[in-house]
């Protein structure tokens, strides 16, 4: 079994020691980073620190050294975002820090995405995300999108104030197996139920898994609306999505 001392990068070792408390998550991350090459660990460390300039530079260097784009994404960027998600869930960092880490992830993905698209490498799944009709709040949705992309999903972001038709059209166009809806207002929460009804009326309900979330949303509400799942925070959203596609969270 891998040990913490098998991880070359001091920042990564410190992050795992100081911020990851659940034994299963410690074991998974130690196992992951112990086998990744040092340059990937450097990319992860820079991403965790929100250093988009360094992530940009190191991603380019890794590609120049002919390291596979998929390896850079999985072992550098996604691995780093995994630790970011845990720290956010456990309140070691807050939204400003997560935004900076997401910015760093984006810096790396600017190089990676075109390569993966061209080579036909598929994401875990496509997720359509939007804030429901009448609601202009999107920070929660955006955090979920950052975490989903940081975990290997492709996300179609419909933005805010999204109508039933817009959700349906996007799911059909992108053949998305997963739809995520967000609401921050109790006045707009019922629109989640209306959208789910619209999918039933369009005979599409069986083709898509629907998850809902947002500050006023609860498991009970999600069940009443007919959603398949409720995500209580951004990391939970990823776990739910992975559950839909049967990937280990």
């Amino acid at each position, binding site marked *: 079994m891998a040990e913490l001392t098998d991880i070359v990068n001091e920042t990564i070792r410190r992050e795992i020691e100081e911020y990851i408390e659940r034994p299963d998550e410690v074991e998974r991350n130690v196992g992951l980073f112990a086998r990744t090459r040092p340059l990937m660990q450097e990319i992860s460390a820079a991403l965790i620190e929100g250093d988009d300039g360094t992530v940009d530079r190191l991603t380019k260097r890794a590609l120049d050294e002919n390291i596979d784009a998929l390896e850079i994404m999985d072992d550098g960027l996604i691995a780093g975002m995994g630790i970011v998600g845990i720290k956010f869930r456990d309140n070691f960092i807050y939204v400003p820090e997560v935004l900076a880490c997401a910015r760093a992830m984006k810096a790396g993905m600017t190089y990676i995405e075109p390569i993966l698209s061209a080579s036909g490498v598929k994401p875990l799944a496509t997720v359509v995300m939007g804030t429901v009709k009448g609601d202009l709040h999107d*920070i929660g949705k955006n955090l979920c999108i950052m975490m989903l992309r940081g975990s290997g999903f492709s996300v179609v972001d419909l933005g805010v104030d999204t109508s039933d038709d817009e959700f349906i059209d996007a799911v059909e166009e992108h053949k998305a197996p997963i739809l995520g809806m967000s609401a921050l207002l109790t006045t707009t929460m019922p629109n989640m139920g209306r959208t789910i009804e619209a999918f039933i009326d369009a005979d599409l309900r069986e083709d898509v898994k629907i998850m809902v979330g947002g500050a006023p949303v609860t498991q009970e509400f999600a069940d009443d609306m007919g959603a398949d799942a409720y995500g209580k925070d951004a990391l939970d959203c990823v776990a739910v999505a992975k559950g839909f596609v049967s990937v280990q969270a």
Partner: protein
Amino acid sequence: MANVQVQTMTSRERVLAGLRRDPVDRTPVCNPTSVATVELMDLVDAHFPEANRDPRMMARLAATGYTELGFDSIMPVFSIIQESSALGCKMQWEQKDNWPTVRMREPIWRDVDDIRIPNDFLTHPDTACVIEAIKLLKMEFGDEVAIIGKTMGPWTLGYHCFGVEPFLLMSLDDPGKTKLALERMKEATIQFGVAQIEAGADALTLPDHATGDLVSGEYYDRYLKDMHAEFVDLIPAPLILHICGRTVDRMNSIAETGMAAFHFDSKNKPQESMDIIRDRISLIGNINNPETLYAKEPEAVREEVCANLEAGVHMIGPECAIPLQTSIENLLAIPRAVRDWHAGHADN
């Protein structure tokens, strides 16, 4: 603290005493945030969005908090958009059953040098509406009931005018610039607050959403604590700070600002919150909105009221602006539960 020796107070006296933590005849029922509902809009024929923009409709709808629900306060500012609208933000006014909202995805400022409080800030229709509504309420109700105004703090104005993500990223990338931005934006908070007091407001709610759901407690200390203390000196009325979400980690700092009260969210336990503030500030709250007031029955509302009273929370009310579809029955349960609790504890 309720004192059976205190003779019967008017609602206004009760709220003002509660803000000073002076003896009261019974715990005040107070709404630092909106208790407007679709049912109440229908009752007095004052509907959103017009009730957010017409002073007579605004006053008429706001008054129902006292006349129909039995709260000890009237708070006419149903949403959080007036200042941002007057600063030039783009608005989405919505319909009767939804809140007007700032289009934060279309921010009006990118940099600190963009910040400008326009000369007509207080005469803009949306700020002027509030000022006029307060005058109308004061004329109608005099000293009978507490009139609470509302002025948004600079952190919230930052979200509205810069956009949430750009503002939060700026707070991390450039703390100096962020502090300067807050310094410049606070003028809007002060101007609007003072204008409402001059119009007759007895107290002001000051929402400033540095919530634990978004930022750390350290952020509150770094960016807002001193400024909130400054507001206490510059705005001549009791101030009720409102921050949604988890705030236990910053309540000690909030209690040190000198603000009269803190309006707290149901994510924070009443007793734990009372233990932290140690009577340095009044607590108002914290009946849950989406799960209890919106979705459950009056008995569940009663339970939460009693939990707050048992903890010694100074004033009872919903945790935030209530869902527009909340039933009047559930809202009536709040003052009813307060009265019943006091009747049951009369010998204590």
